[in-house]
């Protein structure tokens, strides 16, 4: 059987950054497996700018950001197989993949890096009543058609959900001559970043209707209208508030789900809160030698942070490959009051790490508190904290003890 030191599943921003850092750390025997014909992942279709402000200090489009990593991966001569779908990963790290050029591949790896990214929630997840006409798209699918395939998806557009991709597509469709009638969000606050509300909606006079949802989809061959309604605080439509809006296109931007079917096959346990793997401070899953980073682990709002997380992961993978194991992480990190989830979920208490979290609802004038028992490890004051924004906190080993679980909460 073929053998590799490290197999990277997915050649998007996380996989590319991890591959480069592994090579920098002296790991020679690396293979990237990518399902699409080209490297770059979802960045290929994210043609708007705003990428790379943290990492490169300039505002790049998605394809430019990706190409900087792709160029380096190619310069470094890191082996990639594109147009290659990974079918299975076993808990003893045998990766099975299918590719048109190379047929069925079975490769044993010392370490497997899960960097598969995420996918979109669809109409099925919302169970919206009505017919099943053409013209209902998730935001990323609409983005793929418009930005990669030169197919205009529609002209009279309603958007359900205020996630960032939906906001970006509201602007994109408007620039291409479509009429975006409004964005409807079931929550009482927007799900996207404030700057996208401004530059994608307000700039183009696109109304945002909070506490509203689509309650019916109409049309036989093609979508002809949707019915929207106001919702109460438990997201139940309020009878009598229905309004029918003629449209030929409904774009859904209602959340992203880490794509973890392969992780489950490998015996990796998932956290119901992140829908990604339980990981320790090394980004190692509960299966030794299998690691995860980027949107497959938890959905990020900025690609710059995906790259950073993947690089931190690669540092740990390099150590794992050289030493054969990583320090045990016996302490639990618990998500306390107002915290939706935390990454990592386990730590050693003996090393520096980056703590990532999201708050459950918009909060003003709060403090994020990290503690072990009575000992406050870190307290970070925040003027505002939004669920749309991931919070990252560097935690220093010098402040930690190695025998008390950690709790993270917002007060």
């Amino acid at each position, binding site marked *: 059987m073929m053998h590799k030191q490290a197999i990277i599943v997915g050649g998007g921003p996380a996989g590319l950054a991890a591959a480069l850092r592994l090579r920098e750390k002296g790991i020679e025997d690396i293979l990237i497996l990518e399902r699409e014909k080209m490297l770059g992942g979802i960045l290929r279709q994210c*043609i708007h700018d705003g990428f790379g402000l943290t990492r490169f200090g300039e505002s790049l489009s998605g*394809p*430019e950001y990706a190409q900087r990593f792709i160029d380096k991966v190619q310069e470094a001569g890191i082996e990639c197989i594109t147009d290659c779908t990974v079918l299975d990963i076993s808990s003893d790290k045998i990766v099975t993949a299918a590719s048109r050029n190379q047929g069925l591949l079975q490769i044993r790896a010392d370490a497997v890096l899960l960097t598969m990214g995420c996918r979109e929630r669809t109409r099925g997840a919302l169970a919206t009543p009505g017919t099943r006409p053409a013209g209902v798209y998730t935001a990323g699918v609409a983005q793929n058609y418009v930005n990669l*395939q030169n197919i205009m998806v529609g002209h009279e557009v309603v958007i359900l959900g205020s996630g960032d991709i939906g906001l970006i597509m509201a602007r994109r469709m408007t620039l*291409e001559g479509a009429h975006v009638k409004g964005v409807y969000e079931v929550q009482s606050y927007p799900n996207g970043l404030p700057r996208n509300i*401004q530059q994608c909606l307000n700039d183009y006079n696109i109304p945002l209707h909070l506490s509203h949802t689509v309650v019916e989809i109409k049309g036989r061959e093609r979508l002809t209208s949707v019915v929207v309604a106001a919702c109460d605080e438990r997201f139940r439509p309020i009878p009598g508030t229905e309004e029918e809006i003629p449209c030929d296109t409904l774009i859904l931007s209602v959340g992203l789900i880490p794509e973890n079917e392969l992780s489950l096959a490998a015996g990796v346990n998932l956290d119901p809160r992140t829908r990604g793997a339980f990981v320790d401070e090394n980004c190692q899953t509960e299966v030794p030698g299998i690691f995860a980073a980027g949107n497959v682990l938890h959905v990020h*709002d900025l690609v710059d942070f995906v790259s950073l997380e993947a690089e931190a992961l690669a540092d740990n993978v390099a150590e794992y490959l050289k030493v054969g194991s990583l320090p045990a992480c016996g302490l639990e990190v618990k998500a306390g009051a107002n915290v939706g989830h935390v990454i990592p979920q386990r730590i050693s208490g003996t090393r520096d790490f980056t703590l990532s979290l999201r708050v459950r609802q918009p909060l003003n004038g709060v403090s994020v508190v990290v503690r072990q028992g009575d000992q406050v490890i870190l307290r970070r004051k925040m003027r505002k904290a939004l669920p749309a924004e991931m919070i990252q906190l560097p935690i220093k080993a010098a402040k930690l003890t190695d025998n008390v679980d950690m709790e993270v909460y917002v007060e």
Partner: protein
Amino acid sequence: MKTTFTCIVCPNGCEVEAEYEGKKVLSVKGNLCPKGEAYVTQELVDPRRTIASSVRVTGGAMPLASVRLTNAIPKDRIFDVMKEINSITLPAPVRIGDVVIPNVLGLNSDVIVTKNIDVL
């Protein structure tokens, strides 16, 4: 006059509270960096934005090459610039950084390619 602006310069998206008279900023607060004040000042006098779109490519591995502006343009000229971008078709290959339209409509901003497209 008092207005709260959402700064769009970076993902922090600061809510900048600005006090101003006419187009003159008197005070700002809420911004984490000086770019927030510069943004509000610019926004009052002459709001500017960058845009991204795509142009058709013939003979390429993909039918479209993405493009963007190198500098922000006046907000009320966005659709004029879109019209210029939509009139362009490029032969493959194209490379990141290729200038598609120099100084578009005299607005001191170039339209540049942001994706490599090889010949099919």
